[in-house]
């Protein structure tokens, strides 16, 4: 049996193995080591932080400051530098500490990195993996808790992945770093402590392929990131009422796996999407549009989505819990679709 390690350790191991394998892989970000030019740390070859959550801990001591580069607090500078380094042959992995900081550096992704290959007639390759984190539930409030993978997923030329567990995190990260395109790897910060089995070897999880986590015949629930666990709880509870839920972990939000989702809907006739992003123009709305268009005849009712409300993330713990989609809300939504559940 494989070892059980945390989501955070799995990401750290993925980075480590990718760096071990390919010298062109470099990391850039704010305090991804920490303590640059501090004499007493340099003498001991120690990092101060290893990232604000400790995800990159130990990588600077192993690979040196040439490859694990602490940047000034200059998101557009180092994100754009990553685009330039990728266009000229390196495979940078910049870390955007919180996805909420995207405003500072969006140009380098929206107008530069994602478009270069197309604008330059196919001559450029931008093999760059942007690691960032999203998600409410850590009492970090409005400017450190948003879920913006859907905004990035709407830009042509970039792939966006959102792992839900340690196994996928390691394999997806390695796949992202090996990919010759811009890939956004969005980590839910509240999953960092989650433990699961992770093989020690170098392996890849396919980008663009969803996974069926539980099979069922009555209702399909598609989830993004940690919303998987909400769906699994819903499936357990509904099973007691004889309702069999099929749970699909989307894993990749751009390009998302239309085939797996549509095939499931053809079988169950009902679809709920759980997406922690704000409710409008997000990944869930795109899934509604595509499934509505391509599987309309198979549907037994409207496609439903359960998302965060159209508000910023609140600070107070009770409000933050109300903000997050939960199993009760999903079951109420399911009751609108399934007669047997109607009270």
């Amino acid at each position, binding site marked *: 049996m494989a070892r059980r390690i945390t989501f955070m350790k799995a990401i750290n191991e993925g980075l480590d193995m990718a760096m071990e394998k390919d010298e062109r892989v*470099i990391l850039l970000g704010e305090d991804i080591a920490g303590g640059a030019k501090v004499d007493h740390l340099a003498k001991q070859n120690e990092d101060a932080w290893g990232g604000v959550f400790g995800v990159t801990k130990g990588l600077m001591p192993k690979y040196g400051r*040439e490859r694990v580069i602490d*940047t*000034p607090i*200059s998101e*557009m*500078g*180092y*994100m*754009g*530098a*990553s*685009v*330039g*380094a*990728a*266009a*000229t*042959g*390196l495979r*940078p992995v910049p870390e955007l500490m919180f996805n909420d900081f995207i405003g500072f550096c969006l*140009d*380098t992704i929206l*107008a*530069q990195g994602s*478009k*270069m*290959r*197309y*604008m*330059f*007639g*196919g*001559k*450029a*390759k931008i*093999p760059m993996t942007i690691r960032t984190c999203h998600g409410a539930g850590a009492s970090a409030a409005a400017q450190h808790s948003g879920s913006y993978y859907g905004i990035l997923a709407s830009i*042509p*030329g970039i*792939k966006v992945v959102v792992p839900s567990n340690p196994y996928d995190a390691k394999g997806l990260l390695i796949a992202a770093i090996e*990919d*010759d*395109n811009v890939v956004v790897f969005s980590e839910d910060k509240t999953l960092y402590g989650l433990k699961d089995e992770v093989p020690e070897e170098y392996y890849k999880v396919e980008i663009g392929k969803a996974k069926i986590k539980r099979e069922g015949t009555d209702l399909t629930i598609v989830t993004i990131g940690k919303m998987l666990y909400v769906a699994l709880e819903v499936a357990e509870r509904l099973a007691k009422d004889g309702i069999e839920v099929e749970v699909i972990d989307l894993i990749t939000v751009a390009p998302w796996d239309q085939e797996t989702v549509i095939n499931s809907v053809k079988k169950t006739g009902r679809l709920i999407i759980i997406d922690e992003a704000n409710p409008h123009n997000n990944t869930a709305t795109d899934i509604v549009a595509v499934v509505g268009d391509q599987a309309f005849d198979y549907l037994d009712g409207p496609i439903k989505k359960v998302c965060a409300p159209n508000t910023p993330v609140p600070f107070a713990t009770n409000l933050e819990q109300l903000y997050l989609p939960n199993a009760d809300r999903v079951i109420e939504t399911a009751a609108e679709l399934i007669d047997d559940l109607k009270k």
Partner: protein
Amino acid sequence: MEKLSKKRAEWIYKKMNDIRNFEDEVHQIFSTGSIPGFVHLYAGEEAIATGVCAHLTDKDYITSTHRGHGHCIAKGCDLDKMMAEIYGKETGLCKGKGGSMHIADIDKGMLGANGMVGGGFPIAIGAALRNKYLKTDDVAVCFFGDGAANEGTFHESINMASIWKLPVVFVNENNSYGEATPQKYASGSKRIADRASAYGIPGETIDGKDLMAVYEAAGKAIDRARKGEGPTLIECITYRNYGHFEGDEQKYKAKEGQEKDLADRDSIPEFREYAVAEKLLSAEKADQIEQTSVEDIEHAIKFAEESPIPKPESLYENVFVD
């Protein structure tokens, strides 16, 4: 720094003429409606692109601006394919998918004109970071206008280039106007080069109409970068012959005084006179270069006009590396 040789003087004179002829022709053709979109012409600023790129090889990188045709030509991009790109043709440098504002040729180290003002700064330092990481002695040059100097990317990128001692040269083309707004209005510091001291790097302001002034300042800065001594900021005072874009009425330009004097200067005959006097160029050779340049641009126009438009299916190509 290498002293200007006859061979290099000829190369410079040819490139200056190519840029001027290319831009004057695009100006004419644009007015007929044959070229779609927006074009921002480099005519008047030739001494800068050529004086800098004379020191570069295909392995060195440059980032460019809205006003990018001159940098492309000086960096060695193919004139026929450039013209075809501006026409939106399949044979263009970017297969007709980039156009004037996004023209690029990575094989030549040309990392793109840029539709985003200030977009080139971080890309240039990224290329320089790559050069340093791979322990090459290649450099990156970031061309930018006076307007771009007020973007946040200027600050973040120059600061990072300084702390990491990156092999990059920031070449400011101060043509007095960012779009229709005078530099003297938009910048708190009178001289853009003065800001270099805030980042702990050398900065100087030079006469951007004087080819030799650019050649020498750029040579020194590029040598310094190649030796691993870090970045330099060079502010070149220049002027554009045309408007911000084609169709700009240029109501803001001065009709007399110092600005008009600068506008009336032409670095191409100035350099010819210098090079002939210094025996770097014979009058016959100069005449011959002028003639060849006219023919080369005529050839480029013919090539562009006769080239096919892109195939419809190419709309979907090259979004991703497959």
